[in-house]
């Protein structure tokens, strides 16, 4: 085999390699976008549950206005947030407000015993967990992407793919795991 054939093969192999690295970066970037969309899906689910919760609590504890107001306002703020830091901040505020409302509800035995409220609690608990897990999955995706972007040899193809590091989803409050006692 003469030298020009060898060079040709080497170039061809390099092109294939470049394509693989380029595609890898693109795919990782798309999974980060997907993961972020998934967070928004879960946040919306939570937002949709809230009016029901507010009405149920109001039915038994209407004078707990402060706690109820906080939740309503936090929910309104969360529906308008769009950039990642804004979404994270609104998400944190709503989580806090909900926790406050549920803590207040502890003092009302009639409310606690109502089947409506119990079902809502499970719904809320699972939705909070889903929000928390989708944040975790997003951060995992970002970690994978950022690692690829910064490590050699994939880092050489970052310019070609026009893919960059993405930011992590930071929440002020540590995530809570909700585990109510439910029978399966």
């Amino acid at each position, binding site marked *: 085999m003469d030298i020009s054939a060898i060079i040709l093969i080497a170039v061809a192999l390099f092109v294939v390699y470049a394509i693989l690295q380029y595609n890898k970066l693109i795919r990782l970037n798309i999974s980060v976008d997907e993961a972020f969309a998934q967070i928004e899906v879960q946040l919306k689910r939570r937002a949709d549950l809230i009016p029901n919760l507010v009405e149920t609590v109001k039915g038994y504890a209407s004078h707990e206005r402060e706690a109820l107001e906080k939740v309503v306002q936090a929910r309104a703020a969360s529906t308008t947030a769009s950039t990642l830091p804004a979404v994270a901040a609104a998400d944190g505020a709503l989580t806090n407000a909900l926790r406050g409302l549920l803590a207040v509800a502890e003092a009302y035995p009639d409310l606690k015993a109502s089947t409506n409220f119990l079902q809502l609690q499970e719904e809320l608990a*699972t939705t909070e967990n889903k929000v928390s*897990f*989708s944040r*975790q*999955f997003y951060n995992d995706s970002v970690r994978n992407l950022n690692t690829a972007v910064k490590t050699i040899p994939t880092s050489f193809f970052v310019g070609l793919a026009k893919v960059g590091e993405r930011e992590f989803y930071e929440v002020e409050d540590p995530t809570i795991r909700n*585990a109510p006692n*439910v029978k399966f």
Partner: protein
Amino acid sequence: MTDFRAMQSANKRKTFALLFFMGVLVWFIAYVAIAAFGGTGAGVIPLAVLITLVSVWGSYFASDKLVLKMTRAQLITEADNPNLFNVIHEVVIASGLPMPKVAIVNDPAPNAFATGRDPNHALIAFTTGLLDSMDRDELQGVVAHEMSHVANRDTLVSSVAATTAGVIALISDILMRMLWFGGSRNRDHNGQQMPIFLAIIPLILAPIAATLLKAAVSRRRESLADATAVSFTRNPAGLRSALEVLARDTTVVQARSNAVAHMYIESPLDASVASKLFATHPPIQERIAVLRAMEANPSSSN
């Protein structure tokens, strides 16, 4: 080891090493077959491979449907058990896997398994005994462990291990029969390099070695599933507590056999019979200790 990522890498490396040794063992037996039995020996090899491939890979492809029948599991929908589906759905989100099919086995012994040829055809099942004895966090630990088997393609890995062990066992079996029923007639006419009597030792030992290696692969995958479960839930205490519940419980699943034993979260076969080397799962106390170490070191569970 308190870091689940390190644990995952270590288990994957060990699996690779074990499968590599199994591959070496196949070549060794093939060599013995040809060296001691000449042309006849060489003919046995493709036959053994074909039979094993058909039986193992046939069941691999239909694994989800097949296992449903073998374990008498009933498929359920979200309406049948919304709380269980919530727990599973949370793990689905954390893992990025598709939602598997879910089934219930009517059995008072607590246990669970996962199967399916790939994540898009996955099935996870739980006994009624398990659902009754676990709280939400424990159940989520078990769900995460089963989904880890799906994520790590353990049905595929164990099929590969089973194929290799199966080929070795079949070659040895056929050749031993030939030996027994007068293979010595061919001894001087086939141009083999190894005297037949010398082949007996590897032919007897190889299947045993293959079974030991297959069991070792199974143990590594169980350990990997524990680590991957923590990577999903970031809550080692849940799975640890679930294993403690299983360790305390002494009832055993009814619908069990060698064929499906390795898939259960806890080995349903009699513990006193299976010695440590043949065990398909690491000892449960060891698994609990590993998870406790992760709990003690919270920064490792992030």
